[in-house]
């Protein structure tokens, strides 16, 4: 029985020389791999509050809230509910959500776990239903290119952005215009306007 013990002696000697394998944690934090999925950060200027992350989140850690009275749409990330799966990071088209290498979440109070981003929300002219945030509509207009002018809401937002002023409808006897042109409408009201005001149904 001497031989097996001798074989393990090397391991024991190595352990004595190297010292404990564990770290003195709160003072020395363990290094993590670059791919580690840690605490999430939002980049506020990149986020357009589209709500894609809230849609995919399996743990309901994202909350999308509309404040029509203040014309604000808010996305809140509840850090304490997050399961660090990385789905929202993959779903974000703007790279506004990122996992960091931070992992120490412990604190004495339960405050400060929430992070939120607020962006201007556009409401429908007729029914006051929320449509989307201005930045989100602008992004859609940008990606769809000239097709954006087929949609009056997108065209309106683009006009405001480019000209910097409220668009005005052409005047005069021969001005060609439709009453759904250049109006902020939700999809439902747009159809109604189109059918009722133009075709009279």
């Amino acid at each position, binding site marked *: 029985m001497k031989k*097996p013990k001798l*074989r*393990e002696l090397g391991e024991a000697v190595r352990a004595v020389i190297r010292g404990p394998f564990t770290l003195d944690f709160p003072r020395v934090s363990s290094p993590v791999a*670059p*791919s*580690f999925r840690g605490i999430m950060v939002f980049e506020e200027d990149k986020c357009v509050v589209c709500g894609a992350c809230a849609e*995919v989140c399996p743990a309901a850690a994202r909350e999308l809230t509309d404040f029509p009275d203040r014309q604000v749409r808010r996305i809140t990330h509840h850090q304490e509910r997050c*399961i*660090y799966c*990385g789905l929202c990071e993959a779903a974000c088209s703007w790279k506004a959500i990122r996992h960091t290498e931070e992992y120490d979440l412990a604190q004495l109070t339960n405050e400060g776990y929430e992070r939120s981003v607020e962006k201007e929300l556009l409401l429908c002219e007729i029914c006051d239903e929320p449509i989307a945030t201005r930045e989100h509509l602008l992004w859609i207009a940008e990606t769809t290119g000239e097709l954006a002018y087929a949609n009056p809401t997108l065209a309106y937002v683009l006009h405001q952005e480019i000209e910097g002023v409220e668009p005005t409808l052409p005047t005069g006897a021969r001005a060609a215009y439709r009453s759904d042109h250049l109006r902020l409408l939700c999809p439902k009201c747009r159809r109604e306007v189109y059918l009722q005001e133009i075709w009279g149904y």
Partner: protein
Amino acid sequence: MKKVVPIGPYHPLQEEPEFFKLQVEGEKVVGLEINIGYNHRGHEYISPTMTWDQVTFLVERICGICSNSHPFAYVCAVEDCAKIEVPERAEYIRTIVDELQRIHSHFLWVGLAGHFLGYNTVWMWFWRYREPLLDLLESITGNRNHYAMMKIGGVRRDIKDEDIPAIEKTLNLLEEKTALFTRAVLDDPVIRARLENVGFLRTEDAIAYGVLGPTARGSGVAIDVRKDHPNAAYGWIPWDMIVFDECDLFAKAKVRLLECLESVKMIRECLKRMKPGEICAEVHEIPPGEGIGHIEAPRGEVFHYIRSDGSNMPVRHKVRAPSYMNVASNVAAVKGCTIADAVLVLASVDPCYCCTERVMVVEDHKKIGDGNYLIQLSQKRTETLAKRFGDPESRLRTFI
């Protein structure tokens, strides 16, 4: 005279909710009553409220140790339902992550077994070398546990070429240390004395109780989903099933230790054969129908069943974890042991109660519903369903 020694409802050693009533005569255990069901998770209920993609993360949280096995079985079930072809590279990556997870789970068990024996050196050794393995999993998948690798149609993250040297390095370390410690554990006279000829689970009993995984393979039953119904890359690479027919605890320990070495070999083979390519197939929708997925978790076969009605959520999701079968076999294994050995025998199946626990019905502080009651309940349900879907045409409609 028979006396009862209760262990539980909160196990003082394994720190999980289960209740063993050991019936003893003196030092000798003559019978065992197992009560489980103290922990209601509600996974099968939550699952139909989530989309197909989100359920992967839900089932990942069924178990903290084999947290790759449940999503793996689930995605296999969905792929079976939707007839999705998984790219070859994704199959290799799945195999690699699954085998790494198997090594870490077996290391955990051997370490704990050493701790239960009072042999804390074994515990320290195995858990020390489990750390580089967890670090490796972290660099591949992004987390030490809960890897979030499985996706319907493939995997979420690729193994980068620059990571492969690091993987090889850790594998070399693991192989060297596993071989050393395996010999150290198997040669040790004290461990042999504690484990040999203790906790006999005879082959007939193992078959009768339907045990799975290393518990079955230590009792001479050669079953392994990886061999019997190979999924992922298990059918393409050469590997050996480890089976011992000594039927005692030592055989179970040997199976687990040697499986670690086998896993290292399999990961090497996968890395060698892996070719660059797609890691995920395109999935558009899950058609109506049903699918099953079963894979070999470190503890045995994990079985998932899903039924789809064509929407973006499952209508039924059934999970069966291996411990459900393995824990019941303790009744046969623990008979004739002393109480000191019983602790080891009960831990030898590597029980995972959080996987297994479903529901327990209690009325007036008494548990109701034994096996016969459940069979009656099931038959009654079949009768009512047969009445409702009496004519064959409507029966057809329900299945389509």
